[in-house]
């Protein structure tokens, strides 16, 4: 049943680009649950702040470095 409902939410026809469809279109486009699991990790976005947090916590740093921020277009 849930699958059917989800499919109905994700399918449009014809002239679908109008305000009454806005929320459903956003749902179609935005990351799905399986695409956001990696965001459960408490990523910092500033190396210096992360270094400060690591020093305070007594933990090492893990840096994920991409050409294009992984939290952005990376």
């Amino acid at each position, binding site marked *: 049943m849930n699958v059917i409902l989800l499919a109905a939410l*994700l*399918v*449009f*026809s*014809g002239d*679908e*680009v*109008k*305000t009454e*469809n*806005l*929320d459903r*279109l*956003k749902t*179609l*486009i*935005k*990351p*799905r649950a*399986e*695409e956001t*699991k*990696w*965001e*459960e*990790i*408490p*990523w*910092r*976005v*500033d*190396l*210096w*702040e*992360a*270094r*400060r*947090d*690591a*020093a*305070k*916590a*007594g*933990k*090492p*740093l*893990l*840096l*994920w*470095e*991409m*050409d*294009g*921020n*992984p*939290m*952005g*277009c*990376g």
Partner: protein
Amino acid sequence: VLGRALGFSDPEVIKIIKENFIPVVGDDWYQRRRKDDVGKFFRSVVDQTWKAGKWGNNGGDNRQGIYCFTPSGRMLTEMKNVGNLPGELKRLLQSGAAAWNRLPAEERRPGAVTVADVSFDPGFHRPVPAGALVLRQYQRGLKRGPDGTLAAHDFSFKEAPVWAQRDRAWILADEWKALIPATPAVGAQVELPAPLKRRLLRYHFVEALVGEPGAWQPEQIRSDKLALTVEGVSDSTIRYRLDGSVLLATEPDPATARCGLQGKVTGIATVDRAKGAFTRFDVVLIAECWGALNQHNAVSREGRNPVGFAFELGTGAAVDSVPPQGARMLQPYLQP
């Protein structure tokens, strides 16, 4: 985002990171170029790996990868991008954690390292401009069924699943304030400030399902009909509707243009009048896209294909401080 985040989606990997590390993401384009203490620290870490040296005047080769190191900058372990390989990633993390635990207790204790305040290299540091609105941007490959219905298109690129791509868009303080009329009237048209419109068109209405988005040249904006209309006014709120269509193409004739984007826009925005602030700024663009703007912005799918773009207000979370990709070239982005 390609499936290279797959490894970081693995429950065991997430658990190891949460328990053992302070995780941070970085855009290598800035990091390897910056001349401040952050850049010096980064280079001192990378110089302990096979990527050492060759920094050149402009950052040299890219240093993409996954690095584990101490707050003092001692390398524990590093690997190329294995973000899409949970097993490899897990081994890297376990190796890094083990190397950390082999260090003397005095070196590992909280507060063992003092991290001073530093000033940032303004050439390669991109804080959100004062008072600017941050929009979160997403884009996804779509497909149409035989009856024209639109649905998500799940496909792979170089064997990695292509997920919804992300970016951020800035609306400067003077731009969003110009959208709030002193005496709003239902039906009134509100003109979008020209820099805001050009910024959205040139830097954000760009198909970049894989790779890094390019930017349209001003003359490649072939048509832009965007109308922001006051749809409702009460004592507490102003509600707007955005409608329009856009055509962006590398050559004047979209039928033969090497690269293009043609689509329709819709949106809803609301203002809290007491606060003088936007509380909703939702925009969707559904466009047919083809070609690629530059070598970093690969052709994700052959032919002309629908792509959906969605924008919404950020929440002020840390992720909203990640700058727009287009802001690498700051002044052209702010004044396109």
